[in-house]
């Protein structure tokens, strides 16, 4: 049985550890064995911290009962996306620019998970600097979808999703700028959370688009997703954009049910441009919630095409600014070429950044340039502000909003044209542009076995409503 510890639910893992049915060392070992057996094929991890994980697990086992934290994830291992800083462990953002970068500090989210008794297993693959929807833009390796090997795992947190779906980690952290947690969660049949903007600290998350992104959680079940969120929740003085959103009671939320909840179906995401199989999957899930006592009706929303355009303008503009720090002087790759400081910067960045990152930096610089900023960037901010107002008014009539997580099924590996790649974020950017929390969860599979996923959005700071609905739906699906 101990060889299969990695296949237990996280709740069973936590209970087993508490009752001492097995040790943290054995649980960690089961995951490291799974990584050793499967990850050469899956490609989820860029760095595996086997010795560190074993040492930490051993130290946690050695603590007396009174010294052990009562946290729900005490002793449970996890994986981290490789754009979350880890003291003494490489953090590459899947970029040649940071190939040898070893941060001198932990991100706040990593500090909090470790303080709650977590065991980090390693760092996962991603699209370079978070720019992509397939994890094919990693500078180092490809990751395959463990559910359907010919398909991409989604991105940019595709390594985190693949690690969890392949039982190489019980849960994982990712980051979500325009859908980078939810899209891979959807494509790999997982639960994925993009928290309210400011709910979790971004200190130590390598910045891509600061006004849009949040650290998020990927998991096989709702319980550990909620438990990890509660562990990470809270303001951080090192991140001025973090806020003190109130926590919720996990057990009570698990039992609350959906009776009386008013759920609005975002009509544009069920219409043209969305694969009918994906739309039907989300509609069927909505019907299930209706049968369980929720009130479900359609509601309007502005055309999503403008939101997608606003997202790419804002995220690229912020990326061009955030990535300006990579100049090969203070850290990162330095080119051997160039006769002046400016030339050295340009060659270092030319050699260090991959193709997609260069495109976004160029596009971001262009939309911020003096002749274009009013035409593009200011318009994009206005679209985001209008969208926020529109969605806020929807929450006067609805407790939650529902739509598919992605407009299409996962693309095959190596086959996606860039236009489709940008379009994959159609349903997810809404939460990033408005700052709202969003949770995706699996809602069945197609005849070909590809996962379907629904997405729920809630008002700011109301992750409890997301989890309440997700717990109820997950429970119903297990019946």
């Amino acid at each position, binding site marked *: 049985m101990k060889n299969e510890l990695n296949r237990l639910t996280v709740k069973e893992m936590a209970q087993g550890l508490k009752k001492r049915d097995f040790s943290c060392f054995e649980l960690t070992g089961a995951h490291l064995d799974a990584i050793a057996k499967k990850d050469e094929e899956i490609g989820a991890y860029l760095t595996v911290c086997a010795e560190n994980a074993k040492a930490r697990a051993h130290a946690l086992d050695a603590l007396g009962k009174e010294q052990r934290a009562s946290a729900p994830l005490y002793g449970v291992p996890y994986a981290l996306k490789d754009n979350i800083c880890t003291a003494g462990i490489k953090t590459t953002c899947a970029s040649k620019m940071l190939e040898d*970068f*070893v*941060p*001198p*500090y932990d991100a706040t989210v990593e500090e909090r998970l470790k303080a709650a008794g977590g065991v980090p297993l390693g760092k996962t693959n991603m699209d370079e600097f978070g720019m992509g929807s397939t994890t094919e833009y990693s500078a180092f390796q490809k990751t395959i979808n463990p559910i359907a090997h010919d398909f991409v795992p989604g991105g940019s947190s595709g390594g985190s999703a693949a690690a969890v779906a392949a039982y190489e980690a019980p849960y994982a952290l990712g980051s979500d700028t325009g859908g980078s947690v939810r899209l891979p969660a959807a494509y790999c049949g997982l639960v994925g959370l993009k928290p309210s903007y400011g709910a979790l600290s971004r200190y130590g998350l390598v910045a891509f688009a600061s006004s849009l992104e949040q650290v998020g959680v990927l998991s096989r079940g709702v319980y550990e997703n909620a438990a990890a969120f509660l562990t990470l929740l809270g303001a951080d003085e090192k991140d*001025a*954009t973090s806020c003190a959103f109130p926590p919720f009671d996990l057990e009570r939320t698990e039992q609350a049910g959906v009776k009386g909840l008013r759920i609005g179906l975002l009509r544009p995401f069920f219409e043209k441009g969305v694969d009918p199989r994906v739309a039907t999957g989300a509609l069927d899930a909505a019907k299930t919630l209706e049968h369980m006592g929720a009130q479900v009706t359609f509601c309007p929303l502005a055309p999503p*095409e*403008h939101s*997608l*355009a606003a997202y*790419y*303008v804002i995220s*690229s503009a912020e990326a*061009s600014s955030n990535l300006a720090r990579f*100049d*090969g*002087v*203070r*850290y*990162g*790759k*330095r080119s051997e070429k*160039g*006769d*002046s*400081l*400016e030339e*050295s910067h*340009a*060659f270092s*960045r*030319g*050699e260090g*950044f991959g*193709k997609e990152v*260069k*495109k976004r*930096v*160029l*596009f*971001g*610089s*262009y*939309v911020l*340039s003096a002749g274009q900023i009013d035409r*593009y960037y*200011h*318009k*994009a*901010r*206005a*679209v*985001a*502000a*209008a969208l926020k107002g529109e969605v806020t008014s929807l929450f006067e009539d609805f407790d939650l909003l529902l739509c598919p997580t992605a407009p299409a099924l996962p693309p095959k590996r190596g086959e996606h*044209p*860039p*236009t489709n790649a*940008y379009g994959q974020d159609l349903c997810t950017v809404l939460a990033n542009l408005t700052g709202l929390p969003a949770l995706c969860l699996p809602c069945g599979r197609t005849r070909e076995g590809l996962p379907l996923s629904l997405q729920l959005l809630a008002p700011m700071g109301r992750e409890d409503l997301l989890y309440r609905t997700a717990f109820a739906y997950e429970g119903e699906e297990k019946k």
Partner: protein
Amino acid sequence: MPFEKEEFFKREELEKTAELCRVFLTDEEKQAFEEELAPLLCMARTLSDLPDQGILEEAQETGRVREDTVKKSLQREHLLACAPEQSEGFFLFSKKGE
């Protein structure tokens, strides 16, 4: 091909932008990016026809600021250890010029 030639990035605009953001591009990259930036540019152009309403309100949003006090931070030697080159407590840049 999904995009028309007139929707491509113009070469001189591309070169000027690359210089502005200090990214060296090879000739092959320049040629590829003229076309490959078209999807992003076409998406962005859908915004330029929208009315200006809301721009000022959005621009007025402000963030929270921290108290201006000295606190314990990362150690100098740990930060310097991340640099490609360092010497005597400074980041080292040994190229010609500045």
